[in-house]
Structure formats: C-alpha cells, structure tokens
C-alpha cells in the first residue's frame, strides 16, 4: 500500500501533462488531490506500524543477472520521513496556488519530485534508492530554472551539478561495495552484513558520506543551497529545504553509515587533532552550524537569511549523526522532520506571503511597509516559525536540538560548547530578520521620508492583497505539526528508537572504537 505514494505521484504527474491547455484550476486540484492521497497513505502506514520495525512493502526481482531487486520497505525512520514528505507536499501545493505560468507543467515536475522523494525513503535496494535519488535532480532543475527568480538559471545549474557530482561519488562507492562484497546483491540489509574490510570502509565511507552530505548542505559543500533556495519558486524552496536536503542526510545515515560503520573508526593517527572521519565530519557540521548562522545574520535579502539558516540547521542533523549515540541519532531524525516542517513554513512566509505581494525581499525595503499591519497573518506565522526555529520549548525544533545537544555533549564535550554559540546566533538572526521585515515601523520613518523625497516609489500597504485561504491552510498545517511534535515527541520517538535498535544499525551500535 505504501508503495502507492510513489505511483500516485508519478501517475498524477503524467495525467497533468495530458490535461488540456489553460486549465490551471484543474491542474491545481489534481495535484492537491494526489498530494493528499499520498499523505493519507503515509499517515495510515504511520499509524498502523507503531513498532517501528522493518516491514517489506514490495520485493520482486528486477535485474536478476546483477541481483538487483525492486525492494520497497520501511522502518520507523522511513515512515517519519515519508510522513514529512506528505505534509510538505500538501503545504507546497497550497502555497503555489497562485502559479499561473505553465501551471500544469509546474505541478507535473513538482509531483515527479515528490514521487521520487517517496521512492528514496522507501527503497531498501541500493540500486533502486540511487535511481530515485537521481531522478530528483531533474525536476529540481526545471522547477528553479523555469519558475524561479533571482539568477534562476545559475542557481538551478549550480544545484543540478552539485547534486550530480554528489551522486557520482555515491555511485562509485555503491558499485565498489557491490563488487567488493562479492555476494551479488544490492540489497541494503544484506550488504549491511557483508563485513567489508576496515581498509575498504575507511576509503568508501567518506566518499559516499560526502556524496550524500553535499545534498545535505555540509560545509564547505553547501554553497549550492542558499543560491538554489533563493532562486527557487516558493514551493520548490519548501521542498528543497524541507525534504530534498533530508534525502542527503538520510543517505548519510542509511547508506554511508550503515554500510561502512568502520569508516568512522579512528585512523590511528591525528591530523590537527582530528583522529577519524567522525571527528572530521563533526567539526565540519559545527562549522556549518556557526557559519550558516553568522552569515544569515548579515544578509540583506530576506530569503538568503532563511537559506543560510537551512545550512545551519542541517549542520545540527549531521552533527547528530556523528554522535553515534541513540539520543543524538534520534535527535538528528527528529531534526530532519522538524526542519522539514519549519523550513517549509519560513520559505512559504518569505517567498509566498511576503515576496509575491511586495515584490521585494530586501529587508530594508520591507521595513517601511508596515507588514505587521498590512498582512498580520504573515507576521504571526513568521513569529511562530521563527520561535520554533530558534528552538523555543513547545516546538519541534526544541526537542530536536536538545537531543542533539545532549548527544553531542556525551560524544564531543568541547565541541558542544560551539553549538551553544550557534544556537545563540540563531536567536539573533531570526530576531533581526523579524524585526527588520515586520516590525520596523518607528525607526524607519525618516528613511521613508528620505526615499519619498528622492522619488522612490513606496508601495502602499493597502494595495497588498490579503492572505488567501490556501495559504492560511498551509501555514496552519505546518504550525500544527510542529507544535504536535514539540509537545509530544513520543509520536516520532516510538518509531525511531526501535528502528535504531534494529540489526541494520548493528555496525554503528557496536561501535567498538568508542
């Protein structure tokens, strides 16, 4: 049944292409229905499989001569991320309700992307996983290049090439693992038991990990993320930050760390105080957290603030993965979920609610518009999303970051201090952006007067169209999800913990080097 999340999305994408021209309303409705159907299936599975253990959805031979199977399955982690995809997909469509330019193509690419994302989360054959992972690249490119803004062709191409280079690295690693195992299978569960030689793992692990981490925005390979996010249309940035970056993190955990756990073991020598790949990636993750937050602090473009904040938040996920303890890993997965929701919400507020109305994202230009009066709903949404993103208790971000912090404290006590710095800067940049964009009425009157004197056109706030119903629904859906997880994280933990205790993660858990 769960497999239908993929098929429905692909079928709907195909149907959309066959729709008669100039039928935007029908296209929207069809896309929304497909997304809701996917979400409903995901939710049903989420409720049904409360144990979090691995269950097979479909398993048939695909290319028998190479031992490749069409193997879809899910455990607690997959279920959480599939549910996330369902929620963000619906919200993304609601926030794209105003797309008038080549509507049906937009939603066709959109659903192609969604379907492949579902596919990645559900694949337990590495070949199949890779197939879905690569399909994701193409719709991303076109969504940004056709419907994007600010330097869209550059952003789209950069993103496509970064992703493709990443997946090329993954492909080399996967084929090497396939050949080295000698067991003629691409099945994740079987390869995880293959016991590759430690030497091989030390080489293959960083290759595959970096390959996936490029898509997860690991510093210094993150530069595609801010440009891509800013160039993308709202729904695409929501998906990009919300689920596509999670694909990278998921691949790191599901493929790199599961197949090559010994790649995390110490090298036996130290360079610059780093003694293993685990140290290297933990440090890079923390640099990402602090760097992303600091850069977000000085941005003039509202969307770049959110773009860099994504880099910072993704750093938390990668750090959580590197803690290698249960609380840190669970935190990382909850952070994937939480950031998926919150990044979606933030991009929706900035890209759809504000930019589509004011046609500027310059923070200093937004200030004089009195947005908190003109579109109060947007202001409230941003305040809530900002608080959640800062990690205020009661929201999902708090639970996730707290767990990662505890995990990191146990694993890398000194580095954990730096995270505190990252969180602090996180509070400041959200505060700054919020204040500048929505609540800057008093201090800027002089600027306004000055600009008017110079003949600058200041858009009158009355002219801004009101927030529409689809936008309200989308925002409420995302906020409600974040609060639910924040108040009752047990919903996700119940699924995640048994999954982390499954034999699949034996290699990480054994962790004999600790």
């Amino acid at each position, binding site marked *: 049944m769960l497999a239908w999340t993929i098929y429905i999305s692909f079928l709907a994408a195909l149907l959309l292409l066959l729709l008669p021209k100039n039928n935007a309303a029908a296209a929207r409705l069809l896309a929304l229905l497909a997304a809701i159907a996917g979400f409903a299936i995901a939710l049903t599975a989420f409720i049904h499989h409360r144990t979090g253990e691995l269950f097979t959805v479909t398993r048939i031979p695909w290319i028998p001569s*190479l031992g490749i199977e069409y193997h879809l399955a899910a455990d607690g982690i997959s279920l959480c991320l599939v549910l996330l995809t369902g929620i963000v997909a619906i919200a993304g469509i609601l926030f794209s309700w105003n797309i008038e330019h080549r509507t049906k193509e937009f939603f066709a690419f959109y659903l192609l992307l969604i379907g492949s994302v579902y596919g990645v989360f559900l694949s337990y054959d590495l070949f199949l996983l890779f197939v879905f992972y690569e*399909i994701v690249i193409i719709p991303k490119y076109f969504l940004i290049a056709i419907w994007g803004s600010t330097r869209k*062709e550059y952003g789209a191409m950069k993103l496509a*090439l970064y992703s*493709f280079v990443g997946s*090329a690295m993954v492909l*080399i690693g996967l084929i090497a693992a396939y*050949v080295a195992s000698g067991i003629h299978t691409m099945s994740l569960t079987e390869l995880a038991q293959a016991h590759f030689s430690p030497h091989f793992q030390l080489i293959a692990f960083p290759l595959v990990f970096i390959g996936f981490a490029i898509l997860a925005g690991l510093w210094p390979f993150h530069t595609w993320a801010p440009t891509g996010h800013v160039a993308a249309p709202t729904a695409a940035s929501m998906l990009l930050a919300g689920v596509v970056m999670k694909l990278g993190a998921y691949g790191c955990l599901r493929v790199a760390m599961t197949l090559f756990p010994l790649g995390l073991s110490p090298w036996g020598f130290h360079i610059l105080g780093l003694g293993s790949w685990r140290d290297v990636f933990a440090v890079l993750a923390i640099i990402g957290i602090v760097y992303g937050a600091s850069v977000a602090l000085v941005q003039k473009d509202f969307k770049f603030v959110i773009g860099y904040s994504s880099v910072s938040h993704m750093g938390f996920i990668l750090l959580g993965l590197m803690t290698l303890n249960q609380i840190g890993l669970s935190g990382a997965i909850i952070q994937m979920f939480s950031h998926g929701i919150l990044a979606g919400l933030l991009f929706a507020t900035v890209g759809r609610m504000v930019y589509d109305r004011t046609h500027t994202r310059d923070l200093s230009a937004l200030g004089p518009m009195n947005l908190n009066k003109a579109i109060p709903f947007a202001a409230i949404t941003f305040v809530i999303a900002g608080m959640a993103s800062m990690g205020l208790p009661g929201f999902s971000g708090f639970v996730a970051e707290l767990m990662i912090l505890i995990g990191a404290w146990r694993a890398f006590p000194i580095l954990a201090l730096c995270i505190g710095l990252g969180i602090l800067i996180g509070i400041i940049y959200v505060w700054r952006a919020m204040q500048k964009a929505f609540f800057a009425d008093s201090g800027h009157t002089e600027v306004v007067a000055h600009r008017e004197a110079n003949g600058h056109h200041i858009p009158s706030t009355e002219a801004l169209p009101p927030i529409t119903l689809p936008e309200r629904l989308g925002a409420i859906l995302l906020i409600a999800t974040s609060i639910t997880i924040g108040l009752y994280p047990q919903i996700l933990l119940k699924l995640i913990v048994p999954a982390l205790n499954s034999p699949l993660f034996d290699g990480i858990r054994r962790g004999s080097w600790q």
Partner: protein
Amino acid sequence: MTYTHLLHLALPEVILVITSVIVLGVDLLILRNSATKTRFTAASLLATLGCAAAIFHLVYAPQRANLLNGVFLSDPLINTVQIILLVLSIFTLLLSTDSTFTDHVGEFVTLILFATIGMMFLVATEDLLVLFLSLELLSLSLYILTAFDKRNPRFAEAALKYFLFGAMSAAFLLFGFSLFYGFANATSFAQIATAIHAAPLNPLIVIAIVTTLVGFGFKVAAVPFHFWAPDVYQAAPAPAAAFIASSSKVASFFIFFEFMTIALNDASGGAAWRHFATGWTPALALIAAASMILGNLLAIRQTSVRRLLAYSAIAHAGYMLLAIVAHTPQSLSALLYYVTTYALTTIGAFAIVGAVEQQTGSDHLSSFNGLSRRAPLLSACLFVFMLSLAGIPPLAGFFGKFFLFVAVISTPGLVWLAILAIAGSAVSLYYYLQILKRAFVTNPDDDAPLKTPPFTQLVIVLLAASVILFGCAPNLLIR
C-alpha cells in the same frame, strides 16, 4: 560446402543485396519523374521491408556455422548483433521517408543498405581479410552518404576530410593486418592468437597493435583520431549522420572487441593503476581516458547541437572503450547494451535535430528556444534522449553506464578509469541540460508550432519509448 549452402547461410545479407537492386530499379525506372518525397517514401519503405525480411530470417531460422576457420560465422550472439544493426537501419530508413535534400533517392537508400550489408559481414567474421573488406564496404558507403547533401560546399569539404582521414586509417589498419599475417602466416583470429601466444610482445606485434589501434580508433572516433567526427556530424544529412553515429558504432565496437579479445588476448598487458604492463590495454586505456576528458570538455563550448552531439559521441566512445580495456565476458554484454541503447538514443536525437533544422534552418542552440511550446511531443522525446545520454535513471543510458562501470570496477585495478568516466558523465549533464534549458526554459523566438510529419513523430516517439522501456526493464536486452 557448396555455394547453395553458403548462400543459405548468408541469406539475410543476400536478401539485403536483392532489396538494394529492387530499390534502385524501382526508383530509377518507375518513379523517375515522381516527387522527391514520394520517391523517398517508396524507397525507404521497400528497404525497410527488406531489412524486416532479413530480421525475420535471423529470428526464425537461426543457424550455427563456422566456415573456413572463421571467415564467416553464425551464432546466437552474432545473430543478435545483426538484428540490432538491422533494427537501427530500419529506424534510419523510416526517418528519411520525408527527406527532400537530394534527387538521388535510390542511390541514397541503396548506400544505406550497402553499409548495412558491410556491417552484417563485419560482425560475422573472425578473419582479417573479410574484416577489412567489409569495413571498407561500410566506410565507402558512409563517405558518400556524408557528401549527399550537395547544396552547401562546406558539406563536401567535411566528406572529403572524412574520406582522407578514413583512407589513411584504413591504410594503417591494413598495414597492421599485413604484419599480423606475416607473423602468423594466417588471417584467422584463432591462428593469430596461437602465434601471439608463442611470442607475446615481439616488436613486430607491437607495431601491428599500434597501427591496428589507429585504424579502429578512427572508426569509433576516439581521441586523438576524432577530428573527422564534428565536421561529419555537422555536414551529413540528418538520417546519414544518425546512421554514422549509431549502427556503424555498434558494428565497429563489436568487431573491435572481438578482435582484441580473440586475436590479441595474450598481448593484452595490464591497465591497472600504477601497475601498467605492456600490451594493448594500457594504450587503449589512455585513448579512452583522453576521449572521455576531451570529448566532455569540448562539448561544453559548442553552440551547434550537431557538433555538441559529436563531441559527446567522442566521450561516449571513451566510456565504451573501457569495456574493451576490461575485456571480460561481462564487459562484452555491458558494451553491447551500452552501444545499442546509445545508438537508439542518438538516432532519436538526430531525428529531432533534423526536424528543428528543417523548420529553422539551423542547428544552433538558439533554434531550440522554447521548443517545448512549439512542439511539446518532440521536446518530451528530446527530454528523454538528452537525459538518457547524460545517464539519468530510469532511462537506458543510465543502465548502460551502470553495467559498464560494474564490469570495469570488477576488473582489478581499473577503478581509476571508472572514476574518470563517472566524473566525465557528471560534466556531461551540464551540456545536455544546456539543450534542454533552451527547449524548456527559454522563451520561443517564434510562437509558430513546429510542423513535423506525423510519421516522423511516430518514429521518434517509438525511439523514446524504447529508451524508457530498456531503461525500466534492462533484462530485455541483457542476456
């Protein structure tokens, strides 16, 4: 063995010869004064019937034979390759049904048939003499096909260049072959193999290997023997360019593999990283590496889609040469899968380029502006072809690369070549996306829908469907 027996064995080829005579006769005697379009349709359909009959014979009356120590062979593998060649020829013929670029219709179609006959013999032999003869039959037909569009003197120049380079490489090949013959006192692959087994790296053999590599390298357009490719791809009429880029590649790669692995197996040496051993594999590995790097980098700078496809073909030749470097049974099946799907994709791509050219008069990237709104169906197919060439799953091009890389990495020490190839294919996404960007992102300069004959569209859609089908179910081809 009698002549009837021989004729019976070579019946598919005989059918094609008879077909070509019929095509010439019908075109010159009956349709002399009809419109060019009618003549093209009639000639292509007749030739298609002939090819179909040959396929029918190969499928329903397959034979096993080995005449005169490998002069003429027939076994299931060879029959499969012949069927693939015939199918590719049929696609080329069907795509030329609506052409109008020449008055010499009968000759054009006949030459395609002659080239096909050459290829059929080429893949069915393990003998130097027949190999050379059939290669010349193929090459001479291709030279003329390239020069067929006489409306532009530049095209004649390209054909002349092709011919001169080709003649020289044929001379190299023949020189190498004569050394092999002098050394082994025989022309069959098996006897050469025995002679080489006795004295693997005799200086004479080294020279023979080098000149042979030059000859074959030219046929498959590998660096540094690639100079003809961009000009020919640009100048040849679209169906001829598609033909040169597709079926002739299939035949050349197959016989290249067979010759290297059967005749020269004991002189293979080793191409493992930092453990190079003298022989033909290190030389071929270098040629392959140079082709992948140069082909991909030069393709980035092209503004003519045909030249872009030519440089990408050089890069693809580099990938395919890896299969020969690996020379395992697994890599042969990977090579065949790759070259077949690549050929289908290239024919489709050239068909679309031809259609766009017919309307806009140029194959410049800008003629593809906004194609998705002028010809939605064609651009959907272009989408499939380009992404398949770039190696995006679930299209056939990706599986071709995957099988190939698995075969290469399975061979000890060749990981460096696979890494180079995978890096190259990451670069290639850039230029394939450039074409798609023009088609899907850029706004059209001219909103008029592109008029393409429905039959051509049907053939292109069939090609795209086969690329998707072989991608989703690769075990249809892999045996």
